[in-house]
């Protein structure tokens, strides 16, 4: 196959990977700070995708614009969930927390199934078939815009954590829970805020992804797994790692889909996951000590 | 006969030297007390003997056989039983079952293991509470349980890590009496880390003093506690009163 086919596929994978990275970023935030393994992550994103579809079909609202209200809605959901339910679980064994999120995931997915049915729904924007030509490369407009949006949101998040007072406070909680309590930080609120932000990331990622992929309820578990693969590969708790992981997985899937059959592409992602879990569980950019 | 032989054992954690070239020879039947200020490296030393940590340098031999770098369960099977500084009973299991887990190491049949467990529970005065769930026990009882569980594994050497901490004087005296009896009846070799000096003085025939990871003194209790270095680093002049 000619080189530019590979390159095009690679670029496509890279751009999609950035959106995956944003989704995984949310998961990384949540785990890095609140230390909850959010098994409902993909399901939350699927819900966001459906909201985007509904808004588009009802109001003609472009998903990239709808991204803002959707992220807000998911922020509120995440905040409420953490504050209301998950907070009381912080002291329970890990497996119980995991199961809690599994229960929530099951409910979300099937509620979506009941509401929307199993058939795929998509969004057809005016620029859906546009593309840009950069020499021999052809880049889909939708993928480009989605990727740019993902980078912007990620940058905003980085900036928040790095430069704002609240962001620093959150990092303090992650670093030393007891210490944070001792200096008077409202840890419960900050945890809820973080979960909310993670959920908002997922919401934003969902509105971007709906430009690239049609949504069905079955995507929920699939994306949860994908998010975990990305986050573990890139480094659980490392925000940069989530993006790196996302791009890596996006690329791998794209190339694997080209070289082998498209349906087998996730096998490679799983293979990477197994290898990382065995040989470098902290991930590419993960920190070893805690 | 030397049961435990530790030569030049060291452990470093990045920049910090937790244990610095410590030597120790424990003869069979002896009771050694290991004392020193917090952070002196006592528990780290225990962790290396019992296998939770591996020494960076030096050798550790049990009855002439090197146990350097072996895993904790292998070392336990070879004959070293230990208790933890922060007790770790099997919380969801009953007192009896906790000890049975230990005695199953030496008894293949559950029935035999249970009988042995009962014997040991009687020895540490927990027989009456054998049906209680471990999580519901008071701290002194949990300590006794952990000793019983360690004993159930049929050790030649017992490592006790601050087993008196948190006990009231009367409870500590009872524990001391039980340990002394154990040593007298079975010849059990004991090494204990302790801060409660009255227990150390009552039990130990030899004392090792650690400070900043290094052994600064060793010998008979009466002698060691009068050494200026020991008084300065750990005991304080009031302790001699």
């Amino acid at each position, binding site marked *: 196959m000619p080189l530019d086919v590979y390159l095009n596929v690679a670029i496509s994978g890279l751009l999609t990977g950035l959106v995956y990275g944003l989704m995984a970023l949310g998961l990384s935030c949540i785990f890095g700070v609140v230390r909850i393994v959010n098994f409902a992550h993909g399901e939350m994103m699927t819900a966001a995708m459906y909201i985007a579809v509904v808004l588009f079909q009802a109001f003609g609202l472009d998903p990239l614009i709808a991204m803002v209200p959707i992220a807000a809605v998911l922020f509120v959901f995440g905040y409420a969930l953490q504050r209301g*339910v998950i907070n009381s679980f912080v002291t329970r064994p*890990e*497996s119980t927390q*995991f*199961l*809690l999120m*599994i*229960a*929530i*995931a*099951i*409910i979300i*997915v*099937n*509620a979506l*199934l*009941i509401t929307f049915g*199993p058939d795929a729904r998509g969004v057809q924007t005016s620029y859906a078939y546009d593309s840009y030509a950069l020499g021999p490369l052809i880049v889909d407009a939708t993928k480009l815009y989605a990727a740019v949006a993902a980078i912007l949101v990620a940058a905003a998040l980085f900036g928040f954590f790095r430069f704002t007072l609240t962001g620093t406070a959150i990092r303090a909680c992650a670093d030393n829970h007891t210490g944070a309590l001792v200096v008077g930080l409202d840890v419960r609120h900050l945890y809820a805020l973080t979960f909310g932000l993670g959920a908002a990331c997922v919401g934003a990622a969902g509105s971007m992804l709906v430009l690239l992929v049609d949504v069905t309820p079955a995507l929920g*578990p699939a994306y949860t*797994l994908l998010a975990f693969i990305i986050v*573990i590969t890139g480094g659980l708790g490392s925000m940069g790692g989530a993006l790196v992981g996302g791009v890596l997985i996006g690329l791998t899937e794209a190339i694997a889909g080209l070289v082998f*059959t498209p*349906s*087998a592409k*996730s*096998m490679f992602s*799983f293979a990477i*996951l*197994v290898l990382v*879990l065995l040989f470098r*569980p902290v991930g590419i950019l993960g920190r070893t000590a805690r | 006969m030397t049961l435990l032989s530790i030569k030049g054992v060291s452990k470093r954690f990045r920049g910090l030297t937790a244990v610095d070239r410590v030597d120790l020879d424990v003869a069979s039947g002896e009771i050694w007390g290991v004392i020193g200020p917090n952070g002196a490296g006592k528990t780290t030393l225990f962790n290396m003997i*019992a296998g*939770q940590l591996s020494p960076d340098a030096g050798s550790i031999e049990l009855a002439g056989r090197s146990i350097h770098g072996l*895993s*904790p*369960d292998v070392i*336990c*099977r070879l004959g070293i039983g*230990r208790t*933890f500084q922060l007790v*770790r*009973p*099997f*919380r*969801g*299991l*009953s007192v009896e*079952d906790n000890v*049975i*887990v*230990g005695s*199953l*190491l030496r008894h293949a*049949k*559950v029935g035999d*293991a249970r009988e042995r467990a009962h014997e040991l529970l009687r020895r540490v005065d927990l027989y009456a509470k054998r049906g209680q769930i471990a999580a519901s026990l008071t701290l002194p009882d949990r300590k006794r349980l952990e000793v019983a*569980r*360690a004993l*159930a*594994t049929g050790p030649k050497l017992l490592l006790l890590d601050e087993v008196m901490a948190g006990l009231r004087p009367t409870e500590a005296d009872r524990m001391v009496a039980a340990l002394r009896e154990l040593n007298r009846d079975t010849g059990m070799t004991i090494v204990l880390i302790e801060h409660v000096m009255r227990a150390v003085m009552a039990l130990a025939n030899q004392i090792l003093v650690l400070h900043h990871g290094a052994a600064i003194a060793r010998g008979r209790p009466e002698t060691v506690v009068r050494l200026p270095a020991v008084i300065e680093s750990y005991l304080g002049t009031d302790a001699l009163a």
Partner: protein
Amino acid sequence: MRALTRDLSRRSIVLLAALLAVLLALPLVANDYQITVLVLILYLAYVGQAWNIMMGFAGLLSLGHALYVGLAAYLSGLLFKDYGISPWLGLLAAIPLSASAGAMISFLAFRFRVTGVYFAILTIAFAEFARIGFDHLAIVNGSGGLFLPVAQNPRSDLWLLRGPPTMFYYVILAATVVAALLSRALLGSRIGYFWLAIREDEQAARATGIDTFRYKTAAVVISAGVTAFAGVFYAFYYNNLFPEQVFNISRSIELIIGPIIGGLGTLFGPVVGAFLLTGLSELLTGTLAALGFDLPGARQVLYGSCLLLVILVLPGGVWPFLARRLRLDGGRR
């Protein structure tokens, strides 16, 4: 027998015997549909018990148990379809296959110290691997599905497991009883004690001389091997296998909800859980149908809600709560 009934109170033995009698007699009064529901309940109870060995006893969370079901189902199904080999003989091949898969996963996991949530994710990864892999496996017809030849006559053939639902009912009932007895025997044995110790505190267990690697692996292997029967049953009961369905993660999750709701680590937890869940879900679908709704996904929402409820309110599960109420517990766990 003494060992098995030790520390079960008089009351519970009587109740158990009564329950068994009822279960044996049920097909006489139930219609075909009700029997299929009962078969499902017992199937979930069986598989739940097998899973419970790993999780409830040894504390190892497996979210990819469908792997063991699927491997056994496909192997025994294939042997029957292509060579006419009886499922009972197929079982003899399926058990080692599933057990080996378990051995491989546990070796990799424990050798490389993969624990807790990471272990669970690893088990998911392997099941997904199998799902996608089998989709492309020509010998089992990939995503096209493997179909077992169905007998024309309605006679019961126990050897080939061809027959009416009632036959399958008694087979799975027998299996569930055997699994219960096996669990009980394991729990009271040396290995059972070691598993509980590992579940409670792995480090303390090692300090008490337990070779945790060995016994954790044993838990996984035994659990996988016991699960194999469920796979064989599945193949011969449904007569069609699709990788997408058999290895699906929702299968894996479905089979753990029963034991969790019923009570992890207890003997009757999985059985109680299976009855409760399936009973409730039948009630739900029945009510919805009566109201004129047909909502795919409603059952699952129910399952998720029950799971949520139990986790929030009755973390130990329904059975321990019930047992205390009915004053049935003479047992230590």
